[in-house]
Each structure stands twice: as structure tokens, then as C-alpha cells.
């Protein structure tokens, strides 16, 4: 059912495939000469082919974070409610009601470019297993996907493929996809971004660690048989940029099987419930070699693997292939010997394959045997903590000054109404309904607020877990530090619209080539911006992912951090603010003010004028925190009918989205038209019934937050009243633009 990528030129790919003569093996595997010398020193001998393959994967950028590790320490990671922070399979926070939440975000950018359907599908499978590994049942997914302009055939092919891959895997594996982001921009033309985030729930006393435990424990490999798919995915795909030979990397993309994934989830949850495992690790990048070395290093023990006992999908796999295969839907469990039979019995019952593949021994080495021969024998920690860490050079690019001075002269657009319609019709601003209606977002009966709103709300007993994910490559390109901080504030504002206070952040840092000092500067600034904003909000970062080498033909993408934020509202508010609840006569207010509207990096400048330049405004923690505090209080008191943060497209788009959802017009007056399009994150649109407006005014006065009344809902058009002009946009036109932007464009390509 899937199409072939357009313009594929098989001959040219084959022609470029022949490797240069006599290139040493380590270089072909992506290791530098210096890294190879470290391996020689570590082992005191030449590595075996299997060892070299394992080092190449474990020391890859993707697995080792070698360019980013030295900077990530600046992120705040502690709070009294943090049970498990960064460095584990998922962050875990205590919800205070007997439950813990597990949260994790990952990228699958490179595989999704090479093979969008399976690349995206296995991204979903992988993140679900990360959540499963800490003992949690995966309960919700979010996808943040970015492509080149939707008018390009190639972008539509990738977009369609990624969405169907997510739908295919997520729906069948039985985890609802309750939100996400869809964006299109030139910078992602040859390097799409596919990030996926998963939330899990677990009883507080059931947190499982990725540890091998004590000597004597038995290693049991659970799940799909091992095959040759995904060999070297981490080093080959995720740790280098793209060029004309990228299509030939397709065999490095793993193939997913949501059916195996679903069975594995249920089997593992039963193992946890019955306390049958000491520790567990999913098999992702680096396969069983990674899982064994991480669990051994964490426990300070050794692990011996018998590769002949791995259940395989194909005959004749060599030791290196068995060790680094990234076949999906596999977990490595550590079990005390007396309980191995019970573990195998649980696996049989759920129709999951399982083999005893090794044992835990004293010492610190991972040893693997194949046909009775030792094919790998190395210190476990040399693959993890012993991996190289680089302090790459960085500095503010010279072109930043030019970028900042390149402001758009503030001409008034011909018509604000036209600008609004163009914004609503922009695929990045428009409704993503075409996307999320392909995802099961209702499974488990707890999706109280689903996709299409500012944040999702998943019910847990009497409380709600509220989640938002936000990215904005354009603003981060213009100022990575301010841009990253804005994302954090924007996420917090989204949470506040459902009354939730933030508990935890995960970040997915999508960047270009870290060996370029300009890119490294963007990265360092981004981390700084995230650190500042999270500190100001008092929210810890409990996990994250770094994806470098998002470049094609030497051109790096815009820096694109994606922030996922989890919050809690406990108890659930009696009146949950919903856009569709707005009624005739309801009043439109804005909470917070934007005294100096700044349009740099706004969707308005990009969409209406094709302009990206100037320096975005910095965030303001005092203003931000007081607005968020007031809004949370309003929700708790049941005052607002609806709330909407101000972000992509600005205030006017936010108001139009309320109108479209509620199928009602509005009369809106403004004094400075720029405030209609600025994306200052410290403002939230509030809708209250006339009977409640005095409560809004009182609460704002008590908290000392500026609010202003902008208008009243009613009629069938969006009526804009300025100091010297009056414009009306028929609601029907606005609706058609917003809801039709993506379906209309996708109708021109085949369904996938």
C-alpha cells in the first residue's frame, strides 16, 4: 500500500556504493582513528570483529551522547517528587496518590527519512518499551513530526508514510496517541524530524531498574526472534548526515511488529506484578550487547552471554550480527535461578518466545561465546561510562548579528483578515485533524481532553495528567536560548489551561552537525535556555534525547528542541475548560499583557511575508509565573468556559481557533494590530460567561495580573475592530481554511 519514494535513482545509488579502497574496518563502522586507539589501549589487543562492531555502536553519538554529555549537566534534574531522573530508560515522578508516572521522549529522524513508515513505527515501538522497562504500563503517546513544505511531493510522501506508520504501530499495540505537533518548513526538506513521547503509569512500589543484579542471576531474552534487521542502525544512520547514498541505508532500518509488541507488554507487566524479575532492559540501539553492558555496568557485575541460545529468525548470523542486531520487540530480563521456570511459563502463556541466554557473574566484564568460542570479552563500563566525551569547539556564529538586524519593517499588512486566513491555511498552524483522526486516541477510556487542544488530559483516578509538547525551529534559529526558554514557558501555559502545575520536563534536542562550531553554539545556548526556564518554573528535567547530524549535503537543520512537559491537576476541575463550550454572549478576555509586541520569528512574518529575521523577545519569569498562577486558580474555581494559550500565529489565531471549535463568531477590538500576531508566551486567552466576569476581574486584581476585555462571542464572523478600521472574516471561510489546509493538500497524493 505504500508508494515508492519519488525520484529514486537506483543506478546512481549503486554507482556510489563501492567503498574506497582499503578503508580500515573501524572507519567504515564510523569510529575515528583516535577512538580506535582507545579501544586498543582498553583491551590491550586488537578487538575481534564482534567487539569492534559493538564499540562502534555503543560509542556512536546516538548511544554515547559524546558531544552533548558535558553540557547536559546544567539542566536542573532534582525535585522531591523525582523518583528516577536522566540516564535511566525513563524519568519517573511520584504523583502523590500511590501512582508514579514515567515519561520519555526519543527521536527517529534518520530511519524515518530512509523509510518513513517503518522508521516512524519502530520509533513508537521503541519508546513504548522504554516506558515498559521501568515497570510502567504505557498509557499515552505524542508525536512531534516535522517535514519540508507540504507542496513538495517528497514531503507529502514522508508525511503520509510517517503518519500511517505511527497509526499502524500505535493503534495495534494498544496505546492511545493523544497529541503531538505537525510542522512544515524548508529546513526539514531533506531531514524530517520524527520525535515520539510516551507516558506510563505504575504503582509507586513497582519501579523496575535496568540492572543485572547479583552473580548467579539468569539472563532471559524475551520477545521477537533476532534477525539481521537494523544492523548498526545507531552508528550508521543516526550518527551521520545524509548524502546521495542514504537510500542504500534502508536495510539499517528496523522493521516493527506491533503484535509482538503488544504481547511483550502484557507478558512483562505480569512478570512485574508477580515480582519475577530483578531487572530488565529493552533492546534498542546496540541490541543485546548494549542491554547486557548497561545492566552489568549499573550493577557492578559481569554478564556472560551464549549467543547460540538466542532464538533467531534466520540461520547463519555471525557473532557481531547477533550482538548488535536491532530487531524490535525484545527485552532482556534478569531473574534469580529459582524463578526462571515461572518466567518462561508466563512467556509461554502470552505466546512470547523466550530463551535463557546468559548469566550474571562476578567481575566487570561482558563475555559472549559463539559455537563455544569467546567472540567478545570487554569491560562492561567501557561501553557506557567509558565512552568518549568531547568538548567540541563552539562560538556565536558571525551571521547571528546579521540575522538579528534583519528586521521586517513594520508595514501594516493589506488586510488583517487576509493575514488571518493565510495563517489558518498554513499547514503548520492549521488543524492537524487529518493526522490525529488516524490515531486511536480514546483507548483506556481516560482521554478527557485529546488531540487538537493546547494539552491533553489523561484521567488517573480523581486526578488528571496534563501533557503538552512544543517545538519551534524558527524562533530557536533566531535565538536558541530565548527560543528554548519560550518553549518551556509555552508548555507550562498549555498545562495551565487545564489547571495543571508542571511536574517534569523531557527534551528532545534535534540539531545539525556537532562538529560545526555554529551548531554546537546553538546546542549550548539551547541547553542554557532550557535550564534557565525550567529553574524559573521549578520543574525538573527527568530525561531527554539528543539527535545530532540532522543535516543533508552539509546543511544543518534549524536548531529544533522539542519540550515535553507533564503536569498534574488534582482533583479534576468540576468544569474542564473546552474550546467547543464557548457560547453566544460569552466574553473574550486576555490574561496578561504584551506591552511591546515583537514579531521576530512569528508565524505571521513567515507566512504572510516569507520573512525570518530579527531577534525574538526574551521570556519574563515574573510575568510568566503570575499569569500561570492566576490561570490555574481560575480553573480550580471553575471560572473559565474555555482557555487557549497564545503561540503559533498569535492571539488572533488563538481566538479564531476558539470560534472554529465552538462554531460561533466573535467581535474583537484591538488598539495595536501587532499584538494580534505576536507570540509572547505570557498571555492566555480566557472565555467567561457574563455572569462570571466579575469573578475573573476580582481574582486578577487579587493576584495583581493585568487582564483586558477584548470582545464578545456571537454572530457568524470574526469581526476585527481597530482604531481606524473594521474588518470581518466569515467564520465559514476561517473554518474551511483551518480544517481543510492539510486534507486538501494531501488529497493530491495517494493515500498511504
Amino acid at each position: 500500500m505504500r508508494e515508492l519514494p519519488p525520484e529514486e535513482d537506483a543506478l546512481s545509488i549503486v554507482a556510489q556504493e563501492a567503498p574506497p579502497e582499503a578503508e580500515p574496518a573501524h572507519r567504515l563502522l564510523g569510529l575515528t582513528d583516535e577512538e580506535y586507539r582507545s579501544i586498543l589501549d582498553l583491551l590491550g589487543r586488537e578487538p575481534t570483529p564482534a567487539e569492534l562492531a559493538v564499540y562502534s555502536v555503543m560509542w556512536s553519538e546516538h548511544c554515547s551522547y559524546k558531544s552533548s554529555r558535558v553540557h547536559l549537566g546544567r539542566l536542573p534534574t532534582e525535585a522531591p517528587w523525582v523518583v528516577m531522573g536522566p540516564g535511566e530508560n525513563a524519568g519517573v515522578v511520584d504523583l502523590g496518590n500511590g501512582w508514579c508516572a514515567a515519561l520519555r521522549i526519543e527521536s527517529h529522524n534518520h530511519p524515518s527519512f530512509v523509510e518513513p513508515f517503518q522508521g516512524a513505527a519502530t520509533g513508537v515501538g521503541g519508546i513504548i518499551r522504554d516506558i515498559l522497562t521501568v515497570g510502567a504500563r504505557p498509557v499515552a503517546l505524542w508525536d512531534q513530526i516535522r517535514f519540508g513544505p507540504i507542496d513538495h511531493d517528497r514531503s507529502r510522501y514522508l508525511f503520509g508514510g510517517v503518519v500511517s506508520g505511527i497509526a499502524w504501530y500505535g493503534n495495534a499495540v494498544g496505546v492511545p496517541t493523544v497529541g503531538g505537533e505537525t510542522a512544515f518548513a524548508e529546513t526539514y526538506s531533506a531531514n524530517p524530524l520524527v520525535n515520539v513521547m510516551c507516558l506510563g503509569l505504575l504503582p509507586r512500589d513497582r519501579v523496575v531498574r535496568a540492572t543485572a543484579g547479583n552473580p548467579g542471576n539468569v539472563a532471559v531474552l524475551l520477545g521477537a526472534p533476532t534477525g539481521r534487521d537494523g544492523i548498526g542502525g545507531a552508528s550508521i544512520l543516526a550518527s551521520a548526515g545524509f548524502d546521495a547514498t542514504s537510500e542504500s541505508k534502508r536495510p539499517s532500518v528496523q522493521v516493527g511488529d506491533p503484535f509482538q509488541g503488544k504481547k511483550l507488554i502484557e507478558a512483562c507487566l505480569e512478570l512485574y506484578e508477580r515480582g519475577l524479575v530483578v531487572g530488565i532492559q529493552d533492546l534498542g540501539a546496540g541490541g543485546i550487547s548494549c542491554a547486557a553492558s548497561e545492566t552489568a555496568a549499573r550493577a557492578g557485575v559481569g554478564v556472560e552471554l551464549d549467543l547460540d541460545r538466542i532464538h533467531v529468525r534466520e540461520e547463519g548470523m555471525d557473532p557481531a550480527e547477533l550482538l548488535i542486531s536491532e530487531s524490535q520487540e525484545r527485552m532482556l530480563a534478569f531473574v534469580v535461578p529459582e524463578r526462571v521456570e515461572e518466567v518462561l511459563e508466563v512467556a509461554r502463556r502470552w505466546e512470547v518466545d523466550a530463551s535463557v541466554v546468559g548469566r550474571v557473574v562476578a567481575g566487570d566484564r561482558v563475555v559472549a561465546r559463539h559455537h563455544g568460542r569467546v567472540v567478545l570479552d570487554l569491560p562492561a563500563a567501557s561501553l557506557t561510562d567509558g565512552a568518549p566525551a568531547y568538548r567540541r569547539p563552539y562560538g556565536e556564529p558571525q551571521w547571528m548579528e546579521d540575522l538579528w538586524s534583519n528586521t521586517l519593517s513594520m508595514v501594516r499588512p493589506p488586510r488583517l483578515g487576509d493575514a488571518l486566513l493565510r495563517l489558518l491555511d498554513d499547514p503548520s498552524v492549521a488543524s492537524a485533524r487529518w493526522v490525529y483522526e488516524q490515531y486511536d486516541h480514546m483507548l483506556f477510556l481516560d482521554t478527557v481532553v485529546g488531540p487538537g487542544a493546547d494539552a491533553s488530559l489523561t484521567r488517573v483516578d480523581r486526578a488528571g495528567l496534563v501533557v503538552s509538547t512544543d517545538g519551534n525551529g524558527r524562533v530557536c534559529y533566531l535565538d536558541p536560548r530565548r527560543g528554548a526558554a519560550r518553549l518551556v514557558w509555552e508548555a507550562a501555559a498549555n498545562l495551565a489551561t487545564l489547571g495543571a502545575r508542571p511536574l517534569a520536563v523531557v527534551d528532545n534536542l534535534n540539531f545539525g552537525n556537532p562538529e560545526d562550531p555554529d551548531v554546537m553554539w546553538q546546542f549550548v545556548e539551547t541547553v542554557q535556555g532550557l535550564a534557565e526556564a525550567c529553574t524559573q518554573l521549578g520543574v525538573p528535567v527527568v530525561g531527554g534525547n539528543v539527535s545530532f547530524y540532522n543535516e543533508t549535503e552539509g546543511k544543518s537543520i534549524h536548531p529544533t528542541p522539542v519540550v515535553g512537559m507533564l503536569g498534574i491537576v488534582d482533583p479534576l476541575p468540576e468544569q474542564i475548560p473546552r474550546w467547543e463550550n464557548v457560547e453566544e454572549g460569552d466574553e473574550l478576555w486576555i490574561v496578561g499583557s504584551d506591552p511591546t509586541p515583537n514579531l521576530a520569528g512569528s508565524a505571521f512574518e513567515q507566512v504572510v511575508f516569507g520573512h525570518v529575521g530579527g531577534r525574538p523577545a526574551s521570556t519574563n519569569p515574573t510575568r510568566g509565573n503570575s499569569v500561570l498562577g492566576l490561570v490555574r486558580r481560575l480553573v480550580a474555581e471553575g471560572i473559565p468556559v474555555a482557555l487557549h494559550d497564545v503561540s503559533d500565529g498569535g492571539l488572533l489565531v488563538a481566538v479564531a481557533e476558539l470560534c472554529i471549535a465552538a462554531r460561533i463568531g466573535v467581535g474583537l477590538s484591538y488598539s495595536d494590530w501587532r499584538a494580534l500576531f505576536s507570540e509572547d508566551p505570557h498571555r492566555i486567552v480566557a472565555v467567561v460567561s457574563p455572569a462570571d466576569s466579575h469573578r475573573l476581574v476580582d481574582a486578577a486584581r487579587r493576584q495583581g495580573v493585568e487582564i483586558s476585555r477584548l470582545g464578545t462571542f456571537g454572530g457568524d464572523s470574526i469581526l476585527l475592530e481597530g482604531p481606524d478600521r473594521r474588518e470581518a472574516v466569515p467564520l465559514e471561510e476561517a473554518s474551511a481554511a483551518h480544517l481543510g489546509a492539510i486534507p486538501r493538500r494531501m488529497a493530491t497524493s495517494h493515500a498511504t
Partner: protein
Amino acid sequence: MSPVTAVVVFPGTNCERDVIRALRALGGEAEAVWHRDADLSGFAGVVLPGGFAHGDYLRPGAIAATSPIMAAVRRMAGEGRPVLGICNGWQVLCEAGLLPGAHIANRDLRFICRFVEVEVVDTDTVLTSTLQVGQVLRIPLNSYEGAWVDPSGEGRVVLRYRDDPNGSQGRAAAVADGRGNVVGVMPHPERAVDHLTGSTDGVPLLESYLAALERLPVHA
């Protein structure tokens, strides 16, 4: 003791917990039963819930239709007990020959997850006995192979889509056998039992099913 429903779990089924939760919230008793169990004695009715039994491999429902438990499901259907297949469960019932017709991919070749409106056209079934003909219900659809086709013309349409979301023959959203005790339904009634999650229109459907359980004595 109120009569107990067996909610069948095939590998890949994913709506079993939701169905049990919804039935219990309405005062019913329900238990998950693994597809390898061949014995349904003691149960008053059976629900085949939604999901992706056996990964939908071969065809949705095709492998599940051969599971050991299906002989017992067939027996219950023959005894006139309520047998309800929701979404993937309906596909299983068709593949097992307990309901006429088969399912093909949605007209637009895309998965559809959204609320749809259905109209009651037949109240002489275990799913609709408490409803009125012409009543309109808003319940979520969640399927890829959701379009029902029935060249035989034997199926009794029970619920009909008001618009045509997926190309189902006769806009059928639910179909019954001749006696009305075996029903397949594509939208999920168990997802519409709570105002907070969008609708309570699934309640009368599940209440009809629960009421039907009382009609026949259960043997041990």
C-alpha cells in the same frame, strides 16, 4: 448473583479492559477469558472486544476465528445467548461465519478514530432492545477495515451511520443474525459511557446487552 459476561482476549486484543470497566460501571459482571480456554460454561453471554487479534495478520479476525474458544462461542450463539462483537470482535464473528459478510478497508484507506452518529434501525436485538427506532447515538468509530460488505444480503442492519464515514454497505454500523442474539458493531459503545470523555450514548446499548443476559438460565 448477576449473570457474568466472558470478555474474550486474543493475543493482540486491546479493548478488553475497557469493555469490562464499562460493563461493571453499569452494574454488570464481566471477566476476561483467554482465547485458549475452550470452556465458557457458567457465563451468560460473551463479548469479543476490539483490538488487533493476532495482529490482524492474514485478514482481521481470520486467525482468531480458529481459536479454541470459538467453538464455545458458537455454542452460546446457538443457545440464543447474547454474543456481541465490537469492532475487531465483529470481524472475528464474520470470519467465524456467525454473522454474514466481511470487512474491507475504509473507503479513504485511512484509519478513522472519531465520534460518528448512528441511527437505530432495528430494536429486536440484544444490542438495541431498550432503544427506539430512529434514535440517534453519538459513539466513537476506531477502525481501518471498518467497511462491511455482504453480497448475501442476509445481514440485518441494526445501526446505520448518518453520514458515510467508511463506505460500509447500506451504511451499516451494526449487524445482527436472524435471531438477533448475535450482533456485530463497528463503533465502540464502551467508549461512550462517560460525559467526561465525550458521550454517554453507549450506555443504552450496553444496558440492552446486560438486560438480554437475564433471559436464559445459565448452566454451571
